[in-house]
């Protein structure tokens, strides 16, 4: 090709030279002096370069050579304009980098297929509390068994329940998270153990020999990856368990509901005890191949109806089905898609800015373009040259952006909220790169074409004669369209961020019902002799609380089964013992917490009526209950609850007397309203695990060592875990809102900056181009202030169009994030008004410098010098 090209090129050269020689000779014959003759011949021939171009075009011998030449030319031009090049590449890199990082997160968390066999068939089944609108309630043993045995739509179902155990025998006793799972659970997921076997049906039978399976991580950490560990025994919660299997390293146990990390698995045995527990199971099923979710739902709802007829406890309960992938990513989905949308807008903004910059750059080179056109370059050549230049900028920006995305993703993952699932599968991989690269190419084409089109189609002739004297309307108009676009995108991003900020503020302002400051919480679990009997458990925790209260600096210390913001706990049906059901024929589901008297004082939970637990609460005494205001109001509206007898479906049914009413407490998070709660006495219902809550007169963090040593003097082998301050727990519960707020806030900040720079760029260019017009206005007597106002008014008008468009789009977009908002609507007027005002201010501020420059134009010189 190149050889062919050079031969053809030489022949062309020969022909041209010969032609010019003949022409020169002819003119000499006609009597012209040789020098003049040659010049005339050349002139007559016209643009030699252009001629060559046209011939080449006819011959079709150009693309690769032209591209190489355009590239060299672009590098030369860009090197001469380092500021423009840096600004463009950085802006583009910012957009691509941010987009790539966010796409990695969204893909890894939401879109990447789950690492199980045919993950689309896996479904989570919940009980549905119809009267109270709880769609996802845990499942009772009986219902799980009925579903599993009766359904035809499912290949199989498995139940799970989180189980945290104390592991003795190592250097230190260790609390290890795990789960009890139905035998067949791993087969159901389609993941086989790397070593050993899964549980058998026999091991499901209550009272079988205790067995355990290990996660790969735990196996390596605790046993150094020794394969001989199979069949050996592990002392767990005081009983030796035989190790039967080890899961592969790539196995990610599904996490949803109250199922957290898992390192150990035990067979779930439906003992009589557990049957009496009420609802506490998580259920996963695998649909028959080809079975639709809707079809399965119809069958399951029918089964739930049968169950409601069979057992009054199921009255008002139905069933709900959710795909496992949707269940795992669940409510994170909306957050991530809002962030994804925001980063898309940011990228669009960056592209718009790059287009503005390039357009201004091309305009500044109009003279050069005109000259090149005059000596014979065609519009197409110029277009391609400018496009090559933009492609070079785009490629550099993309490379930089992708490079920055890798540490960016790591940074993002490090402050991603802990409850976001599957963070381990977040990475910049081939799929992400493909998406980003496509976005980058599309973006480059958009800004590149816009700029190249402007640059190559100017009227060359007039530009040569008088640079900048004849401005056509369209380039200016397109500049203004860019201004409006940037302002509009800025409005949308700022509105999203503004809504999140306002929502976050209202979340933080929620009265949680307890004092989070200066309270340390820690979990204590007993094992061995101490946990043997209720009496020994009670004695130990009494002694522990006594010991802690004696530590200097401790104001109060109490016990509770599960700390506020400590995750879901047991909940069950509560009614009035003298009225079997409430008037509507429905029962009330209340959270159950076990606490001692000092717990309420430690957390500053007010006693509204009656009294708290006292010395009478013993394992053999009559049970008594303290209820919160919501429960009191629900069961005995308008009455004094004290003295009534409650009926709680727990321990085969208890009927405690109500002795006190306390203030409502947010047990789960700040977002949902406090639920009905019944407190039973910790000393009446002892347990082997309690949360210790301690109010101190200093920084909670600095108190932790004294707490540890107090516990160690009681028993050096006792694990103290999940030690943290209540304030930290509350903060963690807001982590996702904080994450979203920060991220959207960051995007909005960048967007506002880009909008400001973009508006400045367009108007600065505009004023520079209109110097002559402004000079004439001033020479004809226009006042400088009126010129200033003219420019500002124009800017304001364009910005107003952008603000209007932005508000319209934001109203639509914000609706998608309504479920993320707390305490404000998606059309929050305060947010919209302040964002609109902010954008108009930014537009005005950005135009101020060009406007002042315009007002300072020296009238006469400008007119004279053109």
């Amino acid at each position, binding site marked *: 090709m190149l050889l062919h090209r050079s031969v053809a090129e030489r*022949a*062309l050269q*020969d*022909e*041209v030279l*010969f*032609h010019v*020689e*003949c*022409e020169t000779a*002819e003119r000499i014959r006609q009597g012209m002096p040789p020098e003049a003759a040659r010049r005339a011949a050349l002139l*007559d*021939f*016209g*643009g030699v370069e*252009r*001629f060559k171009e*046209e*011939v080449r*075009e*006819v*011959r079709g011998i150009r693309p690769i050579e032209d591209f190489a030449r355009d590239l060299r030319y672009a590098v030369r031009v860009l090197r001469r304009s380092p500021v423009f090049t840096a600004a463009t590449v950085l802006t583009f890199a910012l957009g691509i980098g941010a987009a790539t990082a966010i796409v990695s997160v969204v893909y890894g968390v939401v879109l990447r297929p789950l690492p199980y066999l045919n993950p689309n068939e896996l479904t989570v089944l919940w009980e549905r509390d119809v009267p109270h609108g709880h769609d996802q309630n845990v499942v009772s043993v009986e219902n799980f068994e009925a579903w599993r045995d009766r359904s035809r739509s499912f290949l199989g179902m498995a139940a799970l329940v989180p189980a945290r155990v104390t592991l003795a025998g190592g250097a230190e006793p260790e609390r290890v998270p795990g789960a009890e799972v139905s035998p067949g659970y791993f087969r159901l997921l389609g993941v086989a153990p790397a070593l050993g076997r899964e549980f058998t049906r026999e091991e499901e039978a209550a009272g079988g020999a205790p067995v355990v399976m290990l996660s790969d991580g735990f196996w390596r950490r605790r046993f150094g990856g020794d394969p001989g560990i199979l069949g050996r025994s592990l002392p767990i919660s005081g009983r030796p368990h035989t190790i039967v299997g080890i899961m592969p390293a790539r196995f990610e146990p599904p996490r949803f509901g109250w199922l957290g990390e898992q390192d150990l698995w035990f067979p779930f045995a439906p003992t009589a005890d557990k049957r009496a527990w009420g609802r506490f199971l998580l259920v996963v099923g695998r649909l028959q191949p080809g079975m639709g979710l809707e079809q399965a739902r119809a069958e399951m709802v029918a089964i739930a109806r049968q169950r409601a007829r069979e057992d009054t406890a199921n009255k008002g309960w139905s069933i709900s089905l959710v795909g496992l992938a949707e269940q795992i990513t669940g409510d994170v989905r909306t957050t991530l898609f809002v962030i994804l949308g925001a980063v898309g807008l940011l990228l669009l903004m960056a592209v718009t800015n790059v287009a503005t910059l390039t357009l201004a750059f091309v305009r500044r080179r109009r003279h050069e373009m005109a000259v090149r056109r*005059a000596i014979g370059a065609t519009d197409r050549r110029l277009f391609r040259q400018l496009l090559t230049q933009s492609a070079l900028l785009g490629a550099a920006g993309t490379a930089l952006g992708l490079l920055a995305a890798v540490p960016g993703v790591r940074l993002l993952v490090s402050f991603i909220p802990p409850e976001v699932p599957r963070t381990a599968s977040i990475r910049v991989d081939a799929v992400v790169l493909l998406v980003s690269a496509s976005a980058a190419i599309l973006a480059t084409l958009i800004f590149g074409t816009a700029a190249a089109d402007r640059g190559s189609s100017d009227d060359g*002739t007039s530009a040569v004669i008088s640079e900048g004297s004849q401005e056509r309307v369209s380039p200016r108009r397109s500049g203004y369209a860019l201004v409006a676009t940037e302002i509009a995108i800025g409005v949308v991003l700022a509105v999203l961020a503004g809504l999140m900020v306002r929502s976050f503020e209202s979340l933080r302002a929620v009265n949680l019902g307890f004092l989070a400051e200066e309270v340390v919480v820690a979990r204590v679990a007993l094992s061995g002799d101490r946990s043997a009997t209720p009496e020994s458990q009670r004695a130990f925790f009494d002694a522990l609380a006594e010991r802690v209260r004696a530590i200097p600096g401790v104001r109060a210390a109490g016990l509770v089964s599960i700390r506020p913001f400590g995750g879901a706990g047991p909940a069950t049906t509560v009614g009035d013992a003298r009225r079997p059901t409430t008037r509507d024929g429905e029962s009330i589901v209340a959270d159950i917490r076990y606490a001692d008297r000092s717990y309420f004082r430690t957390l500053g939970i007010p006693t509204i009526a009656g009294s708290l637990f006292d010395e009478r609460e013993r394992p053999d005494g009559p049970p008594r209950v303290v209820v919160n205001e919501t429960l009191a109001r629900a069961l005995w509206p308008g009455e004094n609850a004290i003295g009534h007898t409650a009926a709680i479906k727990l321990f085969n049914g208890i009927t405690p007397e109500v002795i006190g009413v306390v203030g409502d407490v947010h047990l789960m998070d700040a977002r949902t309203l406090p639920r009905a709660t019944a407190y039973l006495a910790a000393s009446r219902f002892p347990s082997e695990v309690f949360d210790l809550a301690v109010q101190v007169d200093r920084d909670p963090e600095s108190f932790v060592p004294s707490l540890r040593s107090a516990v160690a003097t009681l028993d050096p082998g006792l694990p103290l875990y999940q030690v943290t301050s209540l304030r930290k727990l509350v903060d963690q519960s807001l982590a996702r809102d904080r994450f979203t707020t920060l991220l959207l806030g960051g995007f909005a900040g960048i967007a506002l900056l880009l909008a400001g720079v973009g508006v400045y760029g367009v108007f600065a260019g505009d004023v520079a181009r209109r110097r002559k017009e402004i000079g004439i206005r001033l020479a004809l007597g226009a006042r400088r202030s009126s010129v200033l106002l003219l420019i500002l008014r124009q800017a304001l008008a364009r910005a107003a169009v952008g603000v209007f468009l932005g508000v319209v789009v934001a109203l639509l977009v914000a609706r998608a994030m309504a479920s993320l908002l707390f305490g404000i609507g998606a059309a929050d007027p305060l947010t919209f008004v302040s964002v609109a005002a902010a954008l108009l201010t930014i537009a005005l501020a950005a135009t101020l410098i060009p406007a002042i420059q315009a007002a300072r134009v020296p009238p006469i010189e400008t007119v004279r010098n053109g």
Partner: protein
Amino acid sequence: MAKEKKSDLLQGTLDLLILNTLATSHPLHGWAISKRIQQMSREVLTVNQGSLYPALYRLEDHGWIAGEEGLSPEGRRIKLYQLTAAGRNQLASEVEAWRIFSGAVDHVLLGALS
């Protein structure tokens, strides 16, 4: 500076003139072709050089004329063009088309005069 845009009519006409010139002559080089057209049109038609060579290459690509290497009187390597058989056919149809076209224009003009 006038715009040097060629219309389709002019381009088509130039092709016709080149083919016709070569039909009644021994092989000619580019400059000679342009001079010959100029002379035969009694200096009315001057061929724009910028159009001539693209036209020559285009005709050559169509296979209507063939270029061959030759030597100028000064011994410089030049390219001489001559008509091919396909070019002769093309010339016939272009002449026919031109007759129809110019006749039609004449009719219009005469009609307008009367």
